[in-house]
């Protein structure tokens, strides 16, 4: 829904931004992300753990946008498998205290799952202008693991749509980089 809304904004003449008649949140720069969790026909299915983060080439620090996991199991048992989201775990997860506000989320069902991030607000915060990759990594209990990268330029002058598709544990992924 946000993506469609945004398309409308992008189609408006620049002068429209000054009118103050538009809904304010839509003007905020940010990222609308759609992650498709594939429907798998397997004997034992568990929803995958999914981590989303932003990294820049050759820079060690990464920004975690979200981690969907079984955060509400008794005694925090769901955290035991976070290390299986292993690239994220190495780059960011192991130095975080979880659950973390604005990052921790429940696992999600098969189908397209939408999540939006606003510039200037956690977890996206502020990004220095430059070239980045949005990385989505999924790891499924008794299943496989997959990592998909979506390169993007920040900030965007006009809304930029970046698409990538996983082969096994992730379906279509779309990121709309909003100016």
């Amino acid at each position, binding site marked *: 829904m946000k993506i469609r809304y945004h398309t409308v904004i992008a189609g408006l003449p620049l002068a429209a931004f000054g009118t103050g008649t538009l809904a304010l949140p839509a003007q905020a720069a940010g990222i609308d992300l759609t992650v498709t969790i594939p429907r798998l026909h397997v004997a034992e299915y568990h929803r995958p753990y999914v981590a989303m983060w932003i990294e820049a080439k050759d820079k060690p620090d990464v920004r975690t946008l979200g981690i969907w996991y079984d955060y509400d199991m008794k*005694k*925090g*048992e769901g*955290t*035991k*498998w*976070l*290390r299986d989201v*292993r*690239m994220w*775990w*190495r780059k960011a*997860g*192991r*130095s975080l205290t979880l659950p973390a506000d604005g990052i921790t989320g429940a696992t999600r069902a098969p189908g397209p799952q939408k999540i939006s991030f606003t510039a200037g607000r956690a977890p996206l915060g502020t990004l220095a202008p430059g070239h980045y990759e949005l990385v989505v990594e999924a790891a499924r209990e008794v299943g496989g693991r997959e990592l998909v990268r979506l390169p993007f330029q920040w900030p965007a002058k006009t809304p930029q749509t970046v698409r990538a598709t996983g082969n096994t544990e992730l379906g279509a992924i779309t990121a709309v980089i909003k100016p």
Partner: protein
Amino acid sequence: MKSRFALLVAGMAAVTLLATPALAHRQWMLPSATTVSGDDVWVTVDAAVSNDLFYFEHFPMRLDTIRAWAPDGSEAKLENASTGRYRSTFDVHLTQKGTYKIASLSDGIGGSYTLNGEEKRLPRGTTADKLASAIPTGASDVKISEHVGRNEIFVTSGEPSDGVLKPTGKGLELEPITHPDDLIAGEEARFRFLIDGKPAPGIDVTIIPGGIRYRNQLNDKTLKTDAKGELAFTWPEPGFYWLNATAKDTNTGIPRATERRMSYVTTLEVQAP
């Protein structure tokens, strides 16, 4: 029955103490994981002496030389320890965040002498205080060597830490430059080897990937440390690797010993990228 078994195990352990690269047997500890997440985390460790890595098929490792240290340097308990026919096993409860070290240290004496024209080996388990009585009067061609072994593994809960990686300054040790729980296939790792706390140049370090049983080639790599005692290695594939460094010198405190043979073993887990 029980005591006979205990004897058997003790005998095997003595063999292990003297294990040098010349022998085919390899001593190893294999943790259930080297990288763990969560709040109430444990690792379980198999400890064995075998030919193929990492299959427990020959002798168990003796437990009484194994100790564990928590990230803050305090000693951690080995729990649920037991020794079976082919392996020992124990758990460590990782109650702190950071890197734990689990190490088996051994120090033994090996040697031989000639008596009445016949070469005899020193009995297994000969200690320094019993050395004099172990060599009969009239023995000639006495060759005594000290065998010092360190076999250690590292497991990390949460973020890796460096506290337990500090060398003790005794014998042959690994001083990681790349953290041992931060190894990725395709990436280069750098390690420094030390003898008595000083860089050990020109020593042999063998690296063998696990899973030997299901391939025809050993796929071992033997590297030599450079002038700074360092080496670099790029892991060809993810998996567990066995690393063995060996060195010898004459710096031994054992009377009549002419050399000190040192062995360092670690098991390293290399993650998929």
